[in-house]
């Protein structure tokens, strides 16, 4: 900036401020004074803010402010208000049976909304965000249910889990057959099982031998017709749904090592209304049985 030299700008007839940058001069068009006072007022306002709200960081905490405002308290207040708002519907959910919830459209809507959130928090890690499942973790959208697909069955499985050490939970598992059956027998029975649902079998496989192995060892749980038994959670081997995969390698692996996937017990970990909401939500995926 060159020396301060105020002058009249020849083009506009307005005085300059005296500031000049490489020949460019700043015109002095005075602002209204009230504008200046407003500016000072905002500064005073900011100081007021420092005093009444938490503002300046200190070494271990910060200035607390006269209002005692705390964002965590605000969250707690909001949550309390939310719980109070949901209170009556939650109480209704707690006292109604899942069948009654399904019959009441208003309650059903509420339960499904509640269930969607609870599912994402608790179930999605294993069963997937939409209940699509993955290897070893059942798809909850299809019509194949190891422990039953009626609303009461689903509720019981959620409440007490499967093979989770709960007396009321689902019991029964697939034992390992290594040592019990010879490798050739395992191979034959695997091919036989694949043939039940119309899958291709390996050339040279002895299906008759496999059928005999099945009758002697597997039918006790999976049934003579191989359609499974929901009391024991044994899979239907004649349909197109394979929890652990349908290729021969996977089936042989299952026979050799057994299966015993665990579904945790949710009783006591989730509240009564939330467990019912989850049952209703899972039921509404579309696979539920009447």
């Amino acid at each position, binding site marked *: 900036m060159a020396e301060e030299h105020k002058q009249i700008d020849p*083009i506009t007839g307005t005085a300059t401020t005296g500031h000049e940058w490489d020949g460019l001069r700043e015109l002095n068009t*005075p*602002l209204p004074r009230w504008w200046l006072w407003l500016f000072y007022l905002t500064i005073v306002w900011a100081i007021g803010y420092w005093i009444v709200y938490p503002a300046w960081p200190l070494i271990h905490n910060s200035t607390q402010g006269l209002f005692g405002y705390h964002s965590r308290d605000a969250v707690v207040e909001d949550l309390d208000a939310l719980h109070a708002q949901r209170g009556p519907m939650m109480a209704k959910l707690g006292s109604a049976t899942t069948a009654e919830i399904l019959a009441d459209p208003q309650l059903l809507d509420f339960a499904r909304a509640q269930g969607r959130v609870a599912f994402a928090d608790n179930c999605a890690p294993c069963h*997937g965000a*939409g209940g699509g499942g993955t290897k070893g973790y059942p798809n909850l959208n299809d019509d194949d249910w190891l422990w039953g697909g009626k609303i009461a069955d689903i509720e019981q499985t959620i409440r007490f889990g499967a093979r989770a050490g709960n007396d009321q939970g689902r019991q029964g598992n697939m034992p390992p057959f290594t040592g019990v059956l010879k490798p050739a027998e395992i191979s034959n029975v695997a091919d036989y099982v694949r043939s039940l649902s119309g899958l291709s079998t390996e050339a040279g496989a002895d299906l008759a031998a496999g059928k005999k192995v099945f009758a002697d060892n597997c039918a006790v749980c999976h049934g003579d017709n191989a359609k499974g038994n929901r009391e024991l959670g044994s899979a*239907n081997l004649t349909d*197109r749904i394979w929890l652990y995969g349908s290729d021969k390698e996977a089936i042989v692996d299952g026979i050799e090592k057994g299966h015993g996937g665990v579904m945790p017990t949710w009783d006591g970990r989730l509240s009564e209304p939330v467990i019912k909401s989850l049952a209703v939500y899972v039921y509404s995926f*579309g696979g539920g049985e009447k």
Partner: protein
Amino acid sequence: MTQLEELVRQSEVKPATPPSPPPPDDDIDDIPLYAARRKIYPQSVHGTFRRIKWAVLLITLGIYYFLPFVRWDRGPNAPSQAVLIDFPNRRFYFFFIELWPQEIYYLTGLLVLAAIGLFLMNALAGRVWCGYLCPQTVWTDLYMAIERFTEGDRREHMKREAAKWTLETYARKGAKHFLWLMVAWWTGGAWVLYFADAPTLVKELATGEAPFVAYAWIGILTVTTYALAGHLREQVCLYMCPWPRIQAALTDEYALNVTYRYDRGEPRMSAKKAEQLKAQGQHVGDCVDCLQCVHVCPTGIDIRQGSQLGCIQCGLCIDACNNIMAKLGRPRDLIAYDTDLNIKARQEGRQPSYNLIRPRTLLYAAIIAIAGGVMLYTLATRDSEGISVIHDRNPMFVRLSDGSLRNGYTIRIVNKQLKSRDFIVAVDGLPSSLVDFVGLPPRADGRQLVSVGPDQTKEVRVLVTDYSDVPPAASTTVLFSLIDADSGAVAQVRDHFFGSERR
């Protein structure tokens, strides 16, 4: 002089009169960075433009204050207020029009119309908006009328303010601020009536049972109206409003502006001196320098300095000058809606011309016609039912135990009619498929009907199962049709059916 300055000088539009002579060099150092406000005491005036302004004031404020009370019968399932912004139910009602939030694009259309309408006004006659229609102008006008009513016209007001303040001075000022606050309060009160049933809300406000937000908004608008119309007035136009700046960039030399015809007015001198000089055969101007044009100006400018930012072009100086000219027996319209081009034309002995129909005004009018036409057409032909579909994100498809594939969708059905309606949803595009609404039992006739309440939407989960022997492609386009079971009206939307694990 630099080249740049020369260029700027050439491109300058010459002001009507040369700028006032620069102050002597000694004073330059005293020009402050912040200027104190000059108080303006606008004088009352009678005339054509004043009458137009009164009429506009009565009409616009009348609409604003009383429109919420106008009733419009829509039947039992909708409010009976002609104009209502119903936030809780997310509806906007305007007489026979009802808008849903997703039709907010009509607001875009309205904003286009408003902007181009503003441009058109500007191309025809400058700041018509500022001078007559702007809320700031209208309310300030009303506040100035109250001020003259309580504190007297310009001369009386100034005299009393300059003298020692008496009890009467305080009483008059008190009355003024009381009336101002009443108008401001009524302004805020009318505002909230657009957002709730007006008669009910008035009753609630009177008995102290209205929601807090209503009182809060009344308070906010009372403060802003009182501050902006009572105290800030022309400061809003000079320092806050962007339109004067935009307007200056948008205008052209053919737009009619409130113009002092200096070709006729100069040299200005008193009537007595003009007589003498005229007797000597010298040229005299019609302006007698009575300053009436300055005294009536609501922004306190001198129109004789030419077109300027502070001029809102309300035309009150035209009225004031015409009154004086009439008294002096000189021709009227020394100040009038005119252009600098016409002044130049008269000076050169040519006929003045008024080009209201120009490419610019035609273009603006065409845009207004097209935008307005499109809005009217879409409003008149829009559907009263709608369907939107969201495919399940996870899982994309489900294989059932018999090998068939199923896709899940969430559909939302919109019923914009004010009565309950039953809909059938059909899915086309798959060779053999089954559509199942989760949680909706089939009716006696076997059809699954979705019932949607009046003026409501309904979300339904739909499962579509493909039973065909041939596995469907990775993605098949399917068409969802929503059919009104009674009238047969149809709304359609496309989506996809995903299949095949080879994806």
